[in-house]
């Protein structure tokens, strides 16, 4: 009864949001942001909110930008006061995040990456923002990534970045190995062949790198099986669905490269940073990765931006939807929720502001022109505006992303496997590490074992 009531409200709000953005379409584009964040509650006592995901102090320029943005936001919204802004790198740092979460001490507006969203909704650790969605004027322009933040018809957060997986490769190594850097592999057979060529460059060269533990193994297994057209759990979320020809294909492919071709090296990659570091080190040819990794490769791992490019995930039928967004602390008051949503919209979703201020980014020598965030419906007002600005200020060579854009077009984006994604990833680490560390690993059996474990896990969670 109650639930369906909410759904109706939500529907009505969505329609309202759509109407609003449609109306905005015709109005003066440049004036809209200020309008959108206008003082609804002007004259009232200021609302205090806290936020996180401030760039670390070590990243001086971005930090300064962010602080400027906060100042501007508060100037535009005199009724809102950002009383506390916390930094962390990366924004989701399990220890810090879980620590605050466990204490109910997360900021009013807090960062959540897609793998954690389901769990936070499930455990009631994020506020239901459905009744306040009208605050985010451009919500209706957002694409399917909003689905990730929905549960039982209620909305718990707003996505601010989204992208599908791809194949990151080192153009320089491709050239060195006599491969065409403008024509990256499109099938797994081509990946295997290219990996062999790169590994043959000498000891220490790795054709293709892959994760095998610390939950990243399961995460990349998921990305791979989605690509093959498979699934990790059944649509109702009650059973494992990866013990299939698609799942076997993922593992057999790795087994082939690791043992028969010997093109994957013998190092173990566990943490997210491990593969990034190896890739930046210039001796690894390819890895699965979203297009957003090129920037950290440059900024945090001292790689040459121009040497890398992203192609589409080979033979992909669907893509794992990576990304992040923001959620609101369940203890927040309605006023705080509205204020928080305004901040999210200002900093992350308003063309020409915050993360979408491409003009500023270009003037500061940051790469501009990457095909993400990919958040808006094709042809929507905001989407068009963002794309135009991005094109106008682009500094990166479009060729670095062209293959990915073209190859990923129209592919369905699939979310992470349910609220227990992390536990499932921990289980899937086992088959991944097995094929990468044990020559005679029995793929069928590994998948059957993992399937039984995931089934048991899901059965218990009901």
């Amino acid at each position, binding site marked *: 009864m109650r639930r369906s009531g909410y759904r109706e409200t939500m529907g009505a709000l969505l329609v309202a949001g759509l109407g609003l953005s449609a109306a905005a379409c015709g109005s003066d584009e440049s004036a809209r942001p200020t309008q959108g964040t206008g003082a609804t509650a002007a004259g009232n006592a200021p609302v205090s909110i806290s936020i996180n995901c401030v760039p*670390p*102090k*070590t990243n001086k320029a971005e930090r300064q930008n962010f602080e400027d943005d906060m100042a501007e936001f508060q100037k535009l919204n005199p009724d809102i006061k950002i009383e506390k802004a916390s*930094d*962390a*790198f990366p924004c989701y*740092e399990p*220890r*810090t995040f879980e*620590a605050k979460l*466990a*204490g109910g*001490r997360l900021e009013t507006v807090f960062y959540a990456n897609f793998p954690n969203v389901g769990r936070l909704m499930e455990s009631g650790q994020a506020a239901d923002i459905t009744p306040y969605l009208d605050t985010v004027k451009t919500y209706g322009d957002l694409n399917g990534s909003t689905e990730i933040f929905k549960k039982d018809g209620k909305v718990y957060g707003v996505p601010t970045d989204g992208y599908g997986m791809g194949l990151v490769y080192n153009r320089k190594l491709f050239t060195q190995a006599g491969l065409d850097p403008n024509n990256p592999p499109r099938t797994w057979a081509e990946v295997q062949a290219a990996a062999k060529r790169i590994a043959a460059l000498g*000891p*220490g060269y790795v054709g293709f790198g892959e994760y095998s533990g610390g939950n990243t193994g399961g995460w990349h297994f998921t990305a791979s099986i989605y690509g093959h057209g498979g699934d990790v759990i059944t649509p109702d979320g009650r059973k494992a669905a990866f013990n299939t020809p698609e799942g076997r294909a993922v593992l057999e492919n790795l087994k082939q490269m690791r043992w028969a071709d010997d093109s994957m090296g013998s190092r173990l990659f566990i*943490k997210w*940073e*491990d593969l*990034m*570091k190896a890739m930046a*080190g210039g001796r690894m040819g390819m890895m699965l990765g979203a297009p957003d990794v090129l920037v950290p490769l440059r900024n*945090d*791992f*001292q790689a040459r931006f121009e040497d890398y490019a992203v192609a589409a995930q080979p033979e992909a039928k669907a893509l794992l939807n990576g990304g992040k967004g923001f959620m609101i602390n369940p203890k927040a008051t309605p006023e705080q929720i509205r204020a928080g949503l305004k901040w999210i919209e200002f900093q992350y979703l308003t063309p020409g502001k915050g993360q979408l201020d491409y003009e500023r980014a270009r003037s500061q020598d940051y790469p501009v022109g990457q095909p993400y965030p990919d958040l808006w419906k094709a042809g929507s007002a905001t989407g068009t505006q963002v794309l135009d600005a991005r094109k106008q200020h682009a500094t990166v060579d479009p060729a670095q992303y062209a293959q990915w854009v073209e190859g990923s077009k129209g592919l369905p984006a699939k979310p992470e496997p349910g609220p227990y994604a992390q536990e499932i990833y921990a289980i899937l680490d086992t088959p991944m590490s097995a094929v990468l560390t044990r020559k005679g690993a029995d793929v069928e059996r590994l998948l059957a074992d993992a399937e039984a474990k995931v089934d048991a896990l899901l059965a218990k969670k009901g």
Partner: protein
Amino acid sequence: MTELTTAPGRPPGAPADPGRRPRKQGRASRPRRPIPTEFRTAVSPHQLNSRRGRTVYWTVLVTVVTGFTAVFVFPLYWMVTGAMKSTEDLLRIPPSLLPPRFTLEAYLEAWELLDLGLLLGNTALYAGGAWLFTLAIDVTAAYALSKLRPVLGRLVLGLMLATLMIPPMVIMLPAYLTVKDLPILGWDLLNTPWAIWLPAAANGFNIFLLKRFFDSIPGELLEAAEIDGASPGRILWSIVMPVSRPILGVVSILTVVNVWRDFVWPLLVLPDNEKMSVSIGIASLSAQMPQNVLIASLVIASIPTIVVFFVFQRQIMAGLTAGGLKG
């Protein structure tokens, strides 16, 4: 064994280092000199100084010295020189024993990149504060339990010693939650030095060591002072503390070294990048750094403890035996 703690560095019954004498008496004639046997061990002195015994002895000695150097010193040498090689040199097969050139570049880079100055400063702050708090809190407590013997003192002591049965690792989650939101007071100690200092003082083993030592201080000494009208605080400060120097040394070293080496607790309670201790800082950034910079940072992080070891070797070893026998 009780005396161990009173005479740090040398177990009872052991003569002054037997290895010292022959060295002083000149190296040239060493093979001819009888192997010193004034300190009797399992091998009989006659056997030892027989022709065969001497061959065996010298073989064993050389083997052990080489073996120990290879196992314990060589890795450290490899670390110090590894930081002087470039990333390419590090990948070279076979590796070179000597770095191609003497350079401190990677060390400087590590210092900059990791902000090691800050991390080391943090760690020193944590260790120093923990030392002060531990001394202040545990010494007074042990003194009260040993000499003032209040009502329920035995129970309190028992409860404190009972904590020795449950290693801190096992209660790390609730302890962490407590530090995050102190019951009654509601303070959040995360990312503050208090999160290190105060739990460090809750150390049953220190209380045990100190109390046992204080128990051995003759009562007459204190009674005399009491009759002279000295307050308990005064007695503690000017009579008990001075005679307890050895044990205070042991407790101090144990505390400082433990805080400096600790990993899990600071990992949990100091998540903020700017508050991290040096171990945590290096571990969490290790995956992002070039190999030679990482190695350089390892060297820098180990220098302080190694220096402390050089300086306080005797106290550390005394603390170790006290800890080993009783802790």
